[in-house]
């Protein structure tokens, strides 16, 4: 048995939805009834079967449609994929990480055969097969990072480590929550985090940077981040703000359940062996409010989190305009009962 890949859209008619299995698979990010920034980094070790944490790289029912949406974004805006020349070794490190992770976790869909530097990759859901020489860019149809990230869900940034800092020197970013690789490329860790409110003052980035600089090979870590998105749209980039910014004005009390989505990023980081770079993956998940409340615990918790969210955070996440309407819609799912600790459904 394997995954059943759905045919759905993240633009135009927005046919994206989650099956009941995908709802249970969703990485709900709130472990209690309120939210505040924390350096919530934990080891990226296998989680419960069926969860988004089961495998190091998560492939789900949306895979084929995600990859089609990425190709559309790149066709309109090739600058969503950029890599500075000194990152080529890190690009190959990423090819190895993704191909081995995907083929180990989903052997029915992906196969990797290695014989020294002679590699053979088969991607069945996308109908891709290539024999290539590891380390020789001329043997692939795209540069190595672009090649493999056109075949893997989630955005990817490759961070170079030098001078006691991390530098955003490479990335494939087509499904972002309102940030731009083209703007951030070449920036240092604190430069690209500069717009985030509150967190600098409480020292979150000092601690996070120190932690990341010391990351070890074979010890990946992860954290969750979240925001909300109107319509199931993967590409909420600043470049396309004119296409999606006005979506926020279309929310009405009647359509909250279908229009308002919780957007969760499962951010995982690995130290790459040959380049000493770090890969920062940002795997986005979308869930409609109507789907979210099918898990009673999440239905109770979500309005409580939104009610107690600091206004700066609500503004930064861009949800001020429809926050109250969403709380009102969710209110009928909160019977006031206590919720159990942790993120998983009861």
């Amino acid at each position, binding site marked *: 048995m394997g995954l059943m890949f759905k045919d759905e859209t993240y633009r135009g008619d927005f046919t994206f939805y989650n099956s009941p299995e995908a709802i249970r698979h969703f990485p709900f990010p709130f472990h209690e009834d309120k939210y505040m920034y924390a350096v919530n980094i934990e080891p990226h070790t296998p989680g419960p079967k069926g969860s988004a944490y089961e495998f190091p790289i998560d492939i789900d029912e949306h895979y084929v449609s995600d990859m089609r949406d990425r190709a559309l974004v790149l066709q309109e805006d090739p600058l969503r994929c950029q890599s*500075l020349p*000194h*990152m080529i*070794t890190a690009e190959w490190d990423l090819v190895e990480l993704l191909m081995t992770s995907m083929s180990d976790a989903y052997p029915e869909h992906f196969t990797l055969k290695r014989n020294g530097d002679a590699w053979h990759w088969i991607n069945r859901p996308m109908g891709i097969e290539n024999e290539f020489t590891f380390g020789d860019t001329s043997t692939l149809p795209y540069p190595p990072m672009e090649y493999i990230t056109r075949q893997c869900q989630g955005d990817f940034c490759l961070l*170079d*480590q*030098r*001078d006691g800092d991390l530098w955003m020197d490479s990335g494939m970013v087509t499904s972002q929550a309102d940030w731009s690789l083209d703007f951030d490329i070449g920036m240092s860790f604190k430069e690209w985090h500069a717009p985030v409110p509150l967190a600098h003052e409480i020292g979150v980035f000092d601690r996070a940077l*120190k*932690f990341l600089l*010391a990351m*070890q*090979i*074979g*010890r990946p870590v992860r954290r969750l981040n979240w925001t909300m998105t109107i319509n199931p749209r993967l590409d909420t980039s600043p470049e396309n703000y004119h296409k999606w910014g006005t979506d926020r004005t279309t929310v009405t009390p009647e359509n909250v359940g279908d229009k308002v989505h919780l957007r969760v990023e499962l951010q995982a980081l690995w130290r790459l*062996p*040959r*380049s*000493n770079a770090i890969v920062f993956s940002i795997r986005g998940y979308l869930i409609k409010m109507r789907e979210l409340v099918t898990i009673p615990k999440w239905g109770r918790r979500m309005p409580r989190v939104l009610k107690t969210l600091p206004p700066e955070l609500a503004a930064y996440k861009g949800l001020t305009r429809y926050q109250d309407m969403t709380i009102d819609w969710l209110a009928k799912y909160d019977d006031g009962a206590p919720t159990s600790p942790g993120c998983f459904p009861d």
Partner: protein
Amino acid sequence: MSAPTEIRVRVAEAEAVTPAIKRLKLVPLTSTPLPDFSGGAHTVVHYTDGPRHVRNPYSLMGSPFDPSAYQISVLRVPDSRGGSALIHDGVHEGTEITITSPINLFPIDRRARRHILIAGGIGITPFMAMTAQLDREGADFQLHYAMRDRASGAYWKLLKSIYGHRVHTYFDDTNETLALTRLLDGQPLGTHLYVCGPAGMIDWVLKTAREAGWPEENVHFERFAAPPPGKPFQVALARSKRTIDVAPRESVLEAIEAAGIEPQFLCRGGACGQCETAVLEADGTLHHNDHYLSDDEKASGKKMMICVSRFEGARLVLDL
């Protein structure tokens, strides 16, 4: 985060490269290959001999492209605290030891258009892996390697045979000196400088480069301090509610580990910052021997790198 991942390995070869330097080839005990690494990375060797535990950092000097084995070089330091001598004398072909997963605190800057590597003595080891990597990646590099004499210098013949004119050697006993000012003069923009060797040499290279106007971010060095011995003292651990004795030839980190507590560490040489510990109370003088804390932080007396720094006085309380 806990201490680094540990890997059990067996010594497959132990070769006396010079009277004082032993090269160890380490292979994994299982069929799982060792992790790939990047030039400049080190591992911490954990060797146990009866009650004595030695944990010393060593640069990985084999090719980063050969995960079947790691290579390190152990210099027998005569006036050391005995750790390097213990490993040098006690480890033979067939000995099983524990090492940590590789960590790189001395990475290549891949933006460089040219790499100038300067090694003194045993400081050659990280450059063994770096040259292999730079050569394979087709980078422009040159190695300048200073040694006491031809007999005590390690690997210089090997390096010359592989990299030819890109390797320059300097022997003290025949009064050959590296003309550093001239070397640094007229290098093209985008040249990066790397130095590893005795403290005096590193200081000299850094100072000369600074005076020649080199940007700090183009100059890289690896400086592991061995924990210096000193007077014994006691340290109270606030969180674990214990008091530990630190012996003259022991570091705080080692004393705490011997008591069964496992603080974080990566380099054990005052460079990486992982074992930074909050000082809650210090009635006496902290001797900061690290290269990590800023002068202001050292003066504040609120932090201590427990891998190399010591204390003299009535009472020291750490947040551990």
